[in-house]
């Protein structure tokens, strides 16, 4: 199904999520439009990552509905969500630490492999369809490596890489899925200024060349205001504002949430 630029792509309507007595999200709704970079911001514990986990169906909200390209995705298992075209990166980097960068990215191509068990077996001994497929997939992975400029660490074990590089590799794996919607959970956390600038550049490059709809959770306000088209602000599990960066910046509720009440 095709979706026009600017039309609702992912719609979140009135979702609420609680863990026992703790309410994480209350009645949150907003939409992600095709062709935009949307940032979700908010103080610590506001429920930003919870929203991503709900979209992934890693958490199942007790109330409300999430629909992607017009279809409800409530209750769809996580791996199918990924197959539908939503991929993500994590705040705490979830890579296979013992594998090389290249293999981690190949893992992201898993869905596109059709060789099956026996095909893979023959492919393993240099023969047949799975072997050809491996070459095709590897080519796509190499394009991503080129795109993210990680050629020099291609064959290194992920566990030995510095943090900033791992973040980039994880982003590469998310891209390997060739998603329609990319969710990024604090891609710039813990980075120095130079790494942040690089990452911001990559986000913009991805937006221009690869994935035209991106949801970003980020704490660095400078970055958020610079690169996002719209911003959603959460506080204590509720949405308190939504709009362009300029609108949000001057919103009294947002200022209150971040800086507290004047007393």
């Amino acid at each position: 199904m095709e979706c026009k630029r600017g039309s609702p792509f992912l719609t979140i309507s009135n979702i609420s999520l609680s863990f026992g007595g703790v309410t994480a999200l209350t009645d949150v709704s907003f939409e992600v439009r095709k062709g935009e970079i949307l940032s979700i911001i908010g103080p610590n514990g506001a429920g930003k990552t919870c929203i991503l986990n709900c979209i992934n169906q890693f958490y199942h909200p007790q109330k409300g509905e999430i629909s992607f390209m017009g279809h409800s995705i409530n209750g769809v298992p996580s791996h199918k969500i990924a197959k539908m075209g939503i991929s993500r990166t994590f705040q705490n980097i979830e890579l296979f630490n013992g594998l090389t960068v290249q293999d981690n990215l190949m893992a992201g191509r898993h869905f596109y492999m059709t060789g099956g068990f026996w095909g893979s077996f023959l492919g393993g001994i240099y023969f047949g369809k799975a072997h050809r497929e491996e070459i095709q997939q590897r080519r796509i992975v190499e394009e991503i490596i080129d795109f993210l400029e990680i050629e020099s660490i291609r064959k290194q074990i992920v566990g030995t890489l510095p943090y900033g590089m791992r973040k980039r590799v994880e982003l590469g794996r998310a891209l390997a899925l060739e998603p329609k919607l990319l969710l990024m959970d604090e891609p710039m956390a813990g980075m120095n200024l130079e790494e942040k600038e690089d990452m911001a550049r990559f986000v913009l490059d991805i937006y221009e060349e690869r994935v035209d709809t991106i949801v970003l959770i980020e704490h660095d306000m400078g970055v958020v205001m610079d690169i996002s088209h719209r911003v959603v602000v959460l506080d204590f599990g509720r949405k308190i504002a939504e709009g362009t960066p300029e609108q949000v910046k001057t919103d009294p509720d947002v200022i209150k949430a971040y800086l507290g009440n004047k007393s």
Partner: protein
Amino acid sequence: MDADTISKLFKQSCDRYGDKKIALRHKKFGIWQTYSWKYFWDQAKYFGLGLVSLGYSKGERITIVGDNEPEWYYAMFAAICCGGIPTGAYQDSLADEIKFVINQSGSIFVVVEDQEQLDKILEIKDDIPQIKKIIYWDPKGLRFYDDPLIISWEKVLELGREYDRSHPGIFEKFIAESQPEDPVYLTYSSGTTGIPKGILHCSRSTMASSAAWDAPDPTDEKDDFFSAFPLAYGAEFIYMIPAFLRGGATVNFPEEPETVEQNIREIGPSKGGAVPRMLENYVSFVQVKIADSTWLKRTIFNLLMPIGYRVARMKRNNLKINIFWKCLYGLYYFMVARPIRDWIGYTGLKVLMIGGASMAAEIFDFFVALGLDARMIYGMIECAPTAVHRAGDVDYETSGVPSPGCDIRITDEGEILTRGPMRMLCYFNNPEATAKLIDASGWVHTSDAGFITDKGHLVCIDRIADLLKLKDGTGFSPSYIENKLKFSPYIRDAVITGDDQDFVGALISIDFANVGKWAETHRIPYTTFVDLSQKKETYTLIKKDIININKKLPERQRIRRFAILHKELDADDAELTRTRKLRRKEVVRRYQDIIDSLYSDKTEYHAEARVKYRDGKIATIKTAIQLATLEDN
């Protein structure tokens, strides 16, 4: 008729090999992609004609900014074949430095690699009004750039094809019209002594340079070159390119600047040159790796390495090597030399040409011991090589005998003068500087002090302006001592002082990686470069090395006092050139206060240094710098 210009040579090789042989190889997407001579020809031809259709004509200049990639070659040959002059700016230059090159050369086109370089050019767009188009070859991130000045590589090729259809045979005509004295290449001096000057070379001079460089091991079709020096630096052009064209060899390009070390190992180039700085780095790399290695490996290295040195010495003295030493050498080569050569990508190399600066004999020895036919080459890019080592006549303390067709004369003041076919045409648009360099009878005044030995070898001591004199009149060459210091793996840069003083002093810049590793293994905690550099233990470490070096120096030239700098010398602070040569005047000016304290009885100096970060921000660092004294030794 034999081809007498670069563009005719290019055509000759393209015609001879067509699509049967690989001209260029570039690692992309993890695989070595190959490009035939035919492809090379087509790219250069259509790009050149594309430029012509955009208003390029004979004698015009283009500036190329980018990493070493085939497109650099295509653009360069496109310009040369159309009778134009390519020049390059270093890819890590600041926008202002690029602006200087573009305006000094009067370029009307700029060819850039990617967004990073394009952004720099757009920043200075208003200051380079003569530019007709800016051409990029890597479109990543440029989709929404809509400046009318910008045009893509593919688009220019398309224009070129169209132009070829309406003007058939014109490209070949351009090539046929080329003359040996036509300028073909413009490179900028590194600016060790002030503003860079444009060195203009013609086919005649570059082909003569290359012939002298290539003589020890003539290039043939099987040879592999590796393009790792910045292409804006003249050495690759004047030495390698004519040889590559004549021999029909292959040039290999690294995937990214960060992967050069991996890629060079994969290729194992059979031809190449090196600058002392590179070799110094290799040696300290090997030393640190060995020190860091397991007990067994370290023992094997320490046990067998002397065999390498011993045999190298026997070979140099033309002694017969008996079967006993041959066997030992075989063992040594297999266990030590070959793995080390593999690590630095020198497995395929036979002759190692070293030039660009003077180098410590210890480093030279090391590479000879690895089984390489190492030779020094002397010459400034304006007229290079002036002297070169011939087979069987290698003496590492000299730069060899005058190269073919080249005359050398030493003036009464001790300056080296040279004259030969490899001399450049002139400094571009700078007649005063040209007149200063080349006198009426064609001699090039190198500004280097030197002498000729009994065996007819040239020895270059140092820049005349750099020679220093102590108060008592003892003259000495700072760079000679500096090179000795730099042999220590822990010393990255050194500045020797002592002009009109009582004794020789030194400012040391430590090698952060190596000293850092040393500190870790010795359980010395440190935080930053500044902290590490001023540790008492670091001083002790460096002192030990200086004492060793002092033993090899004449009494009066020994270092008495030294200080370790709190920052690395950096090209961005104008302390080094982009090819990492010391800009002595600038460094001495900047650290004058520390130097003054060296010659006082202070033991500490409180420094406030302005540091310029890559993004242009300026910050001040406050540190107490220790001043150490070496007791009589």
